[in-house]
């Protein structure tokens, strides 16, 4: 089997990449956090399934509701979250190279992306509420508001996590033990991943 292309780079970075019989693959981040992430994904998954089920039975209503959403803002938000995730990866890689302090600014950049997302989403909500849209407006709006708001709350929680990691990086606390950094990064990626399904599902596909 050919080694994946990342291996030479890892070797160059001084990582031990020899795969011997007793080398067990290492889990990045904490098992408990992964358990939590899986539970979160399951929660969103159930919600997405409910959306699909409801849409199947009310197609026209859903298409009409979707047409009123601002897809451009949604696309911009997608770019912001993807960029944020890339920046988090840079921060984790920087820490692996022993440059914890220097990579704190990558984390700050990721937070800026997250904050912009929150700002754009808040303006979207403001417009929706000004137009009199509420959870009881229609089944589509119920899903639109519930799904995006549930995700919105996760972005905010993710931002709190990133802020803690930023502080930790500035104090170079993850040099010996990168576990908290990797766990937090994994959580942020989950928030990003959910949006990557939510955005096409609610805003685009019709």
């Amino acid at each position, binding site marked *: 089997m050919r080694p994946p292309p990342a291996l030479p780079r890892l070797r160059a970075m001084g990582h031990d990449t020899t795969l011997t019989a007793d080398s067990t693959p290492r889990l990045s981040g*904490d098992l*408990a*956090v992964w*358990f*939590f992430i899986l*539970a979160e994904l*399951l*929660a969103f998954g*159930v*919600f997405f399934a*409910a959306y699909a089920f*409801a849409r199947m039975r009310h197609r026209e209503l859903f298409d009409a509701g979707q047409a009123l959403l601002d897809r451009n803002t949604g696309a911009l938000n997608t770019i912001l979250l993807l960029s944020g995730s890339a920046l988090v990866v840079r921060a984790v890689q920087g820490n692996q190279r022993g440059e914890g302090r220097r990579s704190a600014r990558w984390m700050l950049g990721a937070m800026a992306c997250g904050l912009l997302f929150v700002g754009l989403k808040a303006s979207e909500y403001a417009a929706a509420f000004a137009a009199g849209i509420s*959870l*009881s407006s229609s089944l589509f709006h*119920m*899903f639109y508001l*519930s799904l995006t708001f549930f995700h919105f709350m996760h972005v905010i929680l993710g931002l709190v996590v990133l802020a803690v990691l930023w502080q930790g990086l500035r104090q170079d606390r993850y040099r010996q033990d990168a576990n908290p950094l990797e766990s937090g990064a994994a959580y942020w990626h989950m928030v990003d991943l959910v949006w990557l399904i939510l955005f096409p599902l609610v805003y685009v596909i019709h």
Partner: protein
Amino acid sequence: MQYKSQAVAKPYFVAAIGLFVGQIVFGLIMGLQYVVGDFLFPALPFNVARMVHTNLLIVWLLFGFMGAAYYMVPEESETELYSPKLALAMFWVFLVAGALTIVGYLFVPYATLAQMTGNDILATMGREFLEQPLLTKIGIVVVALVFLFNISMTMLKGRKTAISMVLLLGLWGLAIFFLFSFYNPHNLVKDKYYWWWVVHLWVEGVWELILGALLAFVLIKVTGVDREVIEKWLYVIITLTLVTGIIGTGHHYYWIGAPEYWQWWGSVFSALEPIPFFAMTIFAFNMVNRRRREHPNKAATLWALGTGVMAFLGAGVWGFLHTLAPVNYYTHGSQITAAHGHMAFYGAYVMVVLTLISYAMPILRGRAANSPKAQVLEMWSFWLMTIAMVFITLFLTAAGILQVWLQRISDTPLGFMATQDQVSLFYWMREAAGVMFMIGLVVYIVSFFVKGDKVAEA
């Protein structure tokens, strides 16, 4: 016993077990009234027996929680209890108030009781599980506040651990949400809406925090696994509990007149409520498998593992069974609900209190664990009660499925009482399982009086 003041837990545990017996006696009476309608009528009508059965359950669990907290918090905080005297005084206040309330239920017509106890000043009576007279409710608040003051002060002067913080959060939540029992709006929708803030947010919210903390405490003690590992699991479990449980309240809002979106929110979030219970089971077994010591109290370990499994089955699986709105449309308020209620309360809260008692009581009586003979008897009681509860649940589930079919789905639906006649066989079998449970409870109590070689000094 590491701290002298932990001894105040003992009367709480004794009272809890005493009231537990009362609860089961009334359960057996009611179970019989299901099939022999005029049994003990008019001396003890069904609705009174039911009220006593459920109220005793809540009161004895509260005694159990308080006893557990008085035992656990000094040890976690590494300091004596702030005021053992206050704890003992509140014990008597609570016991007398509880006993008077039960006597009132049994010997005074409910409407007269309401008149006697100032229900016309502030109407709080007449709602399921919150039937207590105003005076009793005020008494509960006073006892809870003094208890919380005592526990909080103890924690403030000592070590603060994650486990005791989670316990305290749960106990404060318990007290705060009980305040909604004083809010009784005329609008029936609002009435039900906030009634669930006590009932649901207790058993599917803050009580689960208490459950998690008590289980974590006993697991640290009997397995010797690092506190760090146990605390991490506890954090994950309580987060999952709160995320699913709080919005999961929506599964009570389907048919009461609340907005329609609750059918979706309630279904989605409450469908996930089994996850924290599943995590608790994995957690308990994982910790016991990774144990670093062989604790002489095998019975306590058995109770701890049993709590995980039975809470998952009773609260998780049996809850999920009828939590989705399209299913609940048919099953609402049927015997399926009763099946879920029985196994969930037993698996989650009865068993965790018995876990704590099983671990703490020998120590309170001056030994690390009971004699092997006493422990064997206690384990027998574990299996008798647990298997009996499994049967009670299965028979009620069968009765429920049949009831839903005959009364709500069939082309020629029967009336409520006609349906009850059709399912009476299952009620008889449930009663037999109830007798088995009672035998288990008697064995449990006998196990406290069995002597034998001491295992070790505490």
